[in-house]
């Protein structure tokens, strides 16, 4: 097998490009902790409403000034409704489902995770722009999937 010189250059270019991408995402992951939401934590989907803190879905302020928001997804809505978040707040969302697979996405913010029954998903975001954000379920969950949305208000 003989590989032409120009093909070698071409393949090296391709591999180099991939190496740069891999280095970039690896650095972002290791140095800045930018990784896709990958929380590994189980919960009994039949007992979500009795499992603290999911028994009180909503926003909780922590001692260090940041926030935690607990969300329960079920067909075809999210709890809590209409979350109000102070401007500049750093919020970590904890989301779980009581029934089927759902999605949890706030377009324009980069908040995006799957919600799997039996597991708790986490994703964080700092809200630096005031406004009313749309929260949508972006995984098909049944006949009313297109209605499964809510609002997050930042002010």
């Amino acid at each position: 097998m003989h590989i032409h010189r120009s093909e070698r250059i071409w393949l090296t270019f391709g591999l180099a490009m991939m190496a740069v991408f891999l280095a970039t995402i690896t650095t972002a992951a290791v140095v800045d902790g930018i990784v896709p939401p990958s929380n590994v934590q189980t919960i009994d989907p039949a007992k979500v409403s009795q499992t603290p803190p999911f028994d009180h879905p909503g926003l909780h302020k922590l001692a260090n000034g940041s926030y935690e928001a607990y969300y329960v997804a079920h067909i075809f809505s999210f709890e809590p409704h209409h979350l109000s978040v102070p401007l500049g707040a750093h919020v970590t969302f904890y989301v779980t489902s009581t029934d089927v697979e759902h999605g949890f996405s706030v377009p324009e913010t980069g908040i995006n995770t799957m919600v799997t029954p039996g597991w708790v998903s986490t994703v964080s975001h700092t809200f630096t722009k005031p406004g009313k954000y749309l929260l949508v379920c972006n995984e098909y969950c049944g006949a009313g999937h297109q209605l499964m949305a809510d609002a997050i208000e930042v002010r």
Partner: protein
Amino acid sequence: MSTISGTGSAGSTDPGFAMRYSVASENLLVLAHIYTATAALTVGALFGLLQGFSRANFLALPAQFDYYRILTAHGVLMALVFTTFFICGLMTFATYRSIPRIRSVRLGWTGYCIMLVGTLMAASEILAGNATVLYTMYAPLKADPLFYLGATLLVAGTWFVAADILRNVISFGRNNPGKRIPLPAHACACTFVMWIIATVGIVVEMLLLIPWSLGWTSGIDVSLSRMLFWYFGHPLVYFWIMGAYLIWYNVIPTTYGGKVFSDSLTRLAFLLLLVLSTPVGIHHQFLEPGVSAGWKWLHTLTTYGVVIPSFMTAFAIFASFEIAARRAGVRGFVATVRWLPWTDPVFTGSALGMLLFIFGGFGGIVNSSYSMDVLVHNTMWIVGHFHVTVGGPVALSFIGAAYKLVPALTGRKLYAPKLALAQTWMWFIGMLLMSTSMHIAGLLGSPRRTSDVTYFGAAGAQSWHGEMVFAAIGGTLLFISVLMFVVVAVGTRLLNEPETQREAFAFAPAEEESMPTAPAFDWLGRWATVAVVLAVLAYMGPLHDQLSVRHFLAPGMRTW
């Protein structure tokens, strides 16, 4: 079929007759696959059009024929039925033609029939509204058992097709010691070995889903079923691509009198696809809880490996163009592009598909890039991406190839070749429009798999509407293009008379090489072993993690 005429009793002792008879019955089998694929494409395209219109708020679908039911049908018919039947037909054909021998087509027909029964079972459950679970069938959405059984039969049927192809390749090796496996047959064997390894995942998933949907087990391990699905789901994509590559490497050069750029590099590209297709599936689960970030990173790394066969293929295609053009005395980029046979729909279908694939490749890098996936996951960007990969390059190359296959198989001239040529451009323009709008809508956050994205007029959703309108217009062009294809494909068989002199179908020969192809490239058994080992290594850790945490089984429900 007219070609079987002359089934005289004298024939049985005449080897020439037996060969002709064998070819005629082989042709019928391949045609059955191709026309079944065409039917799936047609119905799927109608549903696609309705989806586009629903998302653009041109119409609201009635409850008896709701959005998610037809979306399930569209996904299954396009991603699983159209592609699988076409590839089974194409690869059966490529194997048979490059390994001429007197053979029985019983195994091939058995496969076809099982696939067809499975498809009909699954399709009727979907249309009856008993399986509105989309083509990914994510548990704990619980469909009727017949749906899962139908899907299993569709896959099981392909195993017979695979056995038929591999049987012919093995018999070639036995009867021709020291000779190379013919290049097209080598590609088919790589593809179907890969397919067998991949489909083990979906069949194991079905072994969990079927008893559960029958009520024999009380719950389902949701995340395990998802991991099994995507273990299969990504190589499914490479199954499609390998079908398109077979056409690009071995058929397209014949349209301009060219050759395969390199026998050995073609074999190597298919072998790399065989080993690299499976150990990557977790890149479809980047945003999932329960799978740790480390495994996701590992599958990003292995996913990037596919750059090698992809870049090799791009190089080989352009090299084949250039060498043939130079032989014809044509030099320079523009002159070469002009010299190519743009009036031939076989060439143009694939060539426009290759152009779309360049966009698809760029998008794919974003999707597979770990933390970058957050921006696009489950948005319309993804829908744009797979329409510009499977819906563009793959489907359009298959359609183009059908313009050569159907005449060769029916012994008739292509019906309305100008319509066929216009069809390829119509598809290209429609797909470009639809897919670009979908990509933009996705970046703006528009969710996929959603019948109506107005969200009661919410501010965040307003920017999506314009894109959805453009996508619906693109979808209309695509739908018309599919109808044009049907006219040509069916018209060839029904409206044209058989030719006395059948057009020969030959695969492109390879360029002479200074060095012979390494014999190791034909040791498919060993390459298959490497593929299995890599798949095991890539999934051992994630599966172990899945199985070792305490699980809550989901009872399952019907939410539609």
